[in-house]
């Protein structure tokens, strides 16, 4: 199916998210959509999948003008979108999730189609698996199969490789190639150049809501793509690692057993020193999140204690800042403004609005957040929400825990965020983060903890590691030697 767009415009308040976009996507190809944060990629895809309605302009399917209106209508016309976070019903099984949105609820037929598509695409899916038992990567696979069964001819994937394992990325890429071989069209939104090179037939670059040049046929050099994205390119400075300090530790765990509803981690014996950036490396779901919850004091060990600054951590501690990956659900309050967040994190009985407003304006400038102090944070792009969360970390924080700190952020924003975290580290804070991106772990950590098989390694100096060694450890090769 051939999709084209004429003069499409979409604004949110004074922000022009998409300006005069005119482009065509040929059938049977994978089209990369590239751009930095807030460039308008997600907006464009939401316009195409019926989530948003355009302010002006037209969308054509096979040269026929269409009004998409709703996701349901878009799916009926043949456009399906896999969102950044899979939306499904956790208590349903795979079959129920796929069947509930379809118009021909014939279980036997759907079951057969699930098995057919899973086999064709190489996804290890069973119709009777419960969604809540699946990983994010598997839920994404269910979503793709669901859209295919619903008859989608155009599949849109928004940053699909964040938060899934390398094996799942490989499976996804192979599956997408199989899908376009049948004449379907794939729109692949990403900010990762490697993925464009590895997967896409064409690339479309957006910058500040506008199309940069025209659609380019691959191969294109990474330098050319970067220039199109940013208009400039900044090289990565090599960051020297701090040595592992022997001062009194920030966090200490002694024979401590951590858990959540399905997962047990430990027993752990660990000392996490002051003034370090510590990367948590491991496959998705190896216990990093459980670990962070306990370090934040929002979960409590089955056995033993987590000590922070020598004191057992019994509840959330104001000196520990935790920045979750699910920003709008756990991180910030979408309906409240940045000013109100500044106020919220202060401890005074009467709320002095004027000072909070001034402070908010200052932070917005310092952190280059595209927002006004009074704008509800839900109106900001993902990257700006992330910057807002970082800006809100109190100066007094001695422990900073981050899930995917630069997920969905462009290179320049990511570097800016790391510079700020390094300043915090140099002031004595201990920064822990986990990231699906091994090169990020290698580039910014002073030391690394590897998570594997319900255990955690001892603290490994970054300079003793290489990306290859780390990759092996994550897969369990040689893990026994470093296990604490």
């Amino acid at each position, binding site marked *: 199916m051939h999709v084209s767009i004429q003069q499409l415009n979409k604004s949110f308040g004074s922000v022009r998210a998409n300006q005069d976009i005119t482009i065509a996507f040929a059938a049977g190809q994978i089209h990369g959509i590239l751009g930095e944060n807030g460039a308008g990629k997600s907006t464009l895809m939401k316009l195409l999948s019926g989530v948003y309605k355009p302010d002006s302009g037209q969308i054509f399917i096979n040269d026929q003008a269409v009004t998409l209106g709703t996701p349901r209508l878009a799916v009926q016309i043949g456009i399906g979108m896999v969102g950044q976070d899979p939306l499904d019903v956790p208590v349903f099984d795979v079959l129920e999730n796929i069947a509930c949105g379809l118009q021909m609820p014939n279980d036997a037929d759907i079951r057969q189609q699930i098995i057919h598509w899973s086999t064709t695409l190489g996804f290890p899916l069973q119709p009777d698996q419960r969604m809540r038992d699946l990983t994010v990567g598997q839920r994404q696979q269910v979503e793709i199969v669901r859209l295919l069964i619903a008859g989608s001819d155009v599949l849109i994937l928004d940053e699909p490789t964040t938060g899934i394992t390398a094996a799942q990325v490989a499976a996804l890429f192979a599956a997408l190639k199989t899908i376009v071989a049948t004449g379907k069209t794939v729109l692949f939104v990403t900010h990762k150049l490697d993925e464009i090179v590895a997967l896409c037939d064409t690339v479309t670059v957006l910058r500040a809501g506008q199309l940069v040049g025209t659609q380019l046929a691959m191969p294109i050099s990474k330098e050319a793509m970067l220039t199109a994205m940013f208009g400039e390119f900044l090289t990565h400075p090599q960051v020297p690692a701090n040595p592992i300090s022997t001062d009194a530790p920030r966090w200490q765990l002694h024979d401590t057993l951590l858990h959540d509803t399905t997962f047990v981690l430990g027993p752990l014996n660990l000392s996490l020193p002051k003034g370090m950036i510590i990367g948590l490396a491991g496959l998705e779901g190896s216990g990093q999140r459980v670990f962070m919850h306990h370090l934040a004091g*929002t979960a409590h060990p089955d056995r033993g204690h987590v000590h922070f600054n020598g004191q057992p951590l019994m509840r*959330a501690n*104001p000196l520990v800042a*935790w920045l*979750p990956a699910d920003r709008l*659900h*756990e*991180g*910030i*309050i*979408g*309906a*409240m403004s940045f000013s*109100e*967040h500044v*106020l*919220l*994190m*202060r*401890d*005074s*009985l*009467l*709320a002095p609005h004027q000072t909070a407003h001034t402070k908010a304006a200052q932070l917005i400038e310092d952190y280059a957040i595209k927002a006004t102090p009074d704008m509800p944070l839900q109106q900001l792009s993902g990257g700006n929400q992330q910057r807002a969360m970082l800006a*809100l970390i109190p100066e007094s924080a001695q422990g900073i825990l981050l899930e995917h700190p630069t997920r969905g952020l462009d290179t320049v924003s990511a570097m800016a965020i790391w510079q700020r975290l390094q300043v915090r580290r140099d002031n004595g804070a201990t920064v822990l983060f986990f990231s699906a991106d091994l090169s990020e772990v290698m580039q910014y950590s002073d030391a690394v903890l590897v998570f594997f098989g319900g255990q955690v390694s001892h603290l490994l100096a970054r300079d003793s590691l290489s990306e290859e060694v780390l990759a092996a450890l994550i897969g369990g090769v040689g893990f026994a030697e470093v296990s604490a």
Partner: protein
Amino acid sequence: MKTQFVALRTPVIAMGVALAITAVLLLLAGADVLAAFGVLLGGALTTPSRISDMLMLLAPLLLCAVGLTTSFAAGQYNLGIEGQMTVGGVAAMWWLRGYQDGSPVILYWIGAVLCGMLMGAVWALLVALLKRYMHVSEIFAGLGFNFVALGLALYLVFGPWKRPGVASMSGTEPLADALWLPTLTGTRLTLVSPILAIVMLVIVWRLIRHTHWGLQVRACGLSALASVRMGVPATRRTFEAMALCGACAGMAGALQIIGVYHSLVPNVASGIGLMGLLVALLVRADVRWVALVAFFFAIITSGSIQLPLALSIDSSISGVLQGLIVLAIIVARARRGEEAA
């Protein structure tokens, strides 16, 4: 100014739709529509005694609605408001039963109101505790406790506190005359209730909109997870907001005992709490509009009492109109895709 106009446009249209549907219903019933609306909207204001009856309804309604905006702000749908009002009345009665001739009356009045507030707060806290620690929805817990409260009042009226010799739905032995709150000459209205209601309105308004406490309560209501992450003591704030709501309802119950019924009747709440829910649904956490909307509802309800006599129309049309207004506003909001904030 422009944004205020836009914000007002939706409610005005919704009101229009609700009035139109009510008019159609009145037409179908063969009534004189204009006359009926005249009585509904103006009937409560024609004589001093009617105005005083309207204010007697307005005071407890305002207290409940003010309390509910607090619990709404905290994201809690406190459907237990009627029960909290009932136990407030029970607690007030318990305190007043200790009165003996010659005791200082003012102490009994203050004590009764405080007992009512305390008991209402406790009743609301039970709901909050069940939600927090037993994962029972506050909606079901609240409804359940309404029946428990009604059961308690019935038990006392027909059991330990019954009039010597007679047990009747009309209530317990009346309070000593000295304990009746003074009324305005020629009416049944005591000014204490509306004054206290307005005092509570101002206090809650300031708390929710202009204090750090209120900001934290609203944050909990909008996103409990995010507010916990940012260091808001969410459990405490939720409990406090629920307790404040229960205290408002309990105060309303206590004032109904000493100012209106002058004895414990089983039906202390008499649907006022539920009407308060309608008001709170309309204004959500925005305390500024509570007084206006509660006033409007009180006028319609009081006015409707004259409908059967004046125009042979059943007074339940006022409930229909109120329900339609709330429904129309909620539909209008949903169409605009607003957050339930």
